[in-house]
């Protein structure tokens, strides 16, 4: 326990010091995971809604794949992205400038987007399927377009949808295997909280690692509290 307490003290000290290196790491963590979350939400919510609300051949297979995607090891995602973006890989060879290069935040965003997507889509699907099917009918009868219907159903299922986003965020802000591989944990450039934790653990600096872990948890607690606040009254129902 001593080391955990030590970690707490260290965490407070670190934050109080306002060390610019630490601030940069925090900002990068939030930026990378925030953007990745945005992308995977933008893709995952429509896909989840589609799977939840439509019936088409092959749907079950897609669902099973999505569920499997929830267990996609981040390292393997990282490896895929690495091989794809690698300079002698298929995309890297095109040399197209708009594409993210390895060892840049862009590559990390790509990997994290892929990791968060199945969680967001899968849970959105489950949430949407939990909405009374009669509601859909009623909403259409009131003149909703297809898009408006989906929007209303999502808003009825907002608790589940918000949880899906929270889970997606949780899965990437805490992820290390993929960002380590495609980001490279380069100081001042691609070092995020989790890779910093791994580095410090490797160095045997357990209290510093613990301190960074505590900071990470505090950040995600704040992010979740903010989301709960946005989600509003849903919790009192």
């Amino acid at each position, binding site marked *: 326990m001593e080391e955990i307490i030590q970690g707490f003290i260290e965490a407070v000290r670190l934050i109080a010091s306002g060390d610019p290196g630490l601030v940069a790491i925090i900002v990068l963590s939030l930026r990378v995971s925030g953007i990745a979350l945005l992308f995977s939400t933008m893709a995952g919510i429509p896909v989840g809604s589609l799977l939840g609300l439509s019936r088409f051949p092959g749907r079950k297979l897609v669902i099973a794949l999505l569920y499997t995607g929830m267990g996609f090891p981040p390292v393997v995602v990282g490896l895929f992205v690495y091989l794809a973006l690698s300079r002698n890989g298929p995309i890297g060879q095109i040399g197209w400038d708009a594409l993210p290069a390895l060892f840049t935040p862009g590559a990390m965003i790509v990997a994290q987007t892929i990791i968060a997507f199945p969680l967001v889509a899968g849970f959105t699907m489950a949430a949407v399927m939990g909405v*009374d099917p*009669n*509601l859909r*009918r*009623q909403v259409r*009868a*009131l*003149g909703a*377009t297809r898009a408006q219907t989906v929007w*209303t159903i999502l808003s009825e299922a907002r608790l589940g949808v918000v949880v899906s986003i929270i889970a997606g965020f949780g899965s990437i802000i805490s992820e290390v295997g993929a960002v380590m591989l495609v980001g490279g944990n380069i100081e001042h450039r691609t070092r995020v909280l989790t890779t910093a934790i791994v580095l410090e653990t490797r160095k045997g600096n357990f209290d510093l690692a613990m301190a960074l872990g505590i900071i990470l948890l505090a950040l995600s607690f704040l992010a979740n509290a903010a989301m709960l606040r946005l989600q509003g009254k849903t919790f009192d129902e």
Partner: protein
Amino acid sequence: MSEPIYQLDQVAKAYEGRQVLSIKHLAVQQGEILAVVGPSGAGKSTLLRLLNFLEPPSSGVIRFMGVRFGAAGSVPLSLRRRVTTVFQRPVLLNRNVQANVAYGLRLRRQQRGNALVEAALQQVGLEAMARQHARTLSGGEAQRVALARAMVLHPDVLLLDEPTANLDPYNVRLIEEIVCQLNREQSTTVVLVTHNVFQARRLAHRVMLLLEGQLIEVADTTTFFESPEDSRTRSFVCGELVY
């Protein structure tokens, strides 16, 4: 008489192989109140779902204002928005009463929605409950909110599925007056499903009887009740005596 607003030909609907509705021909006239009666499970609610384009018929064609709606078809939004339904079992959104009634207007991005909503709530006697959450309403209150939500859209066709089932005599009279008024002043076409034959008699211009998905008879109200052609209509009308 002008063109009928709805024209159904050889319309059938089956679920999992069981045919629950099968109508050879039916025309609904512009501006009329048509009551649909029949026992539980006869297919009345199914008919309304078809008339609101919520499900396509399994076979046959429904023509609405001249536009076809068949097994594979769909209807343009602008036309679809001329029709709305108050379901048998009111389905309210997980919001407050005011937001529920305003919902259809918001879908249409209508201005001055608030005034309309307030007026509609007043009409159904719920102006005091605008801020209450829909989930906490009593059965009759929910039914009136659902009606207000439909009314406020001023549809050309109003499909009502037992809209007074959960209401007490006072409120029944209130709702019936509203329906008559809409029909009279805005010549709204109304298709009213009711198990209450008295209500059918009070409100409808014409009445039709469904039995096991078959259209048995459709006739103007007096004929239907006093000199029906079909013997089954006669015995159904006699069943009313339990009231």
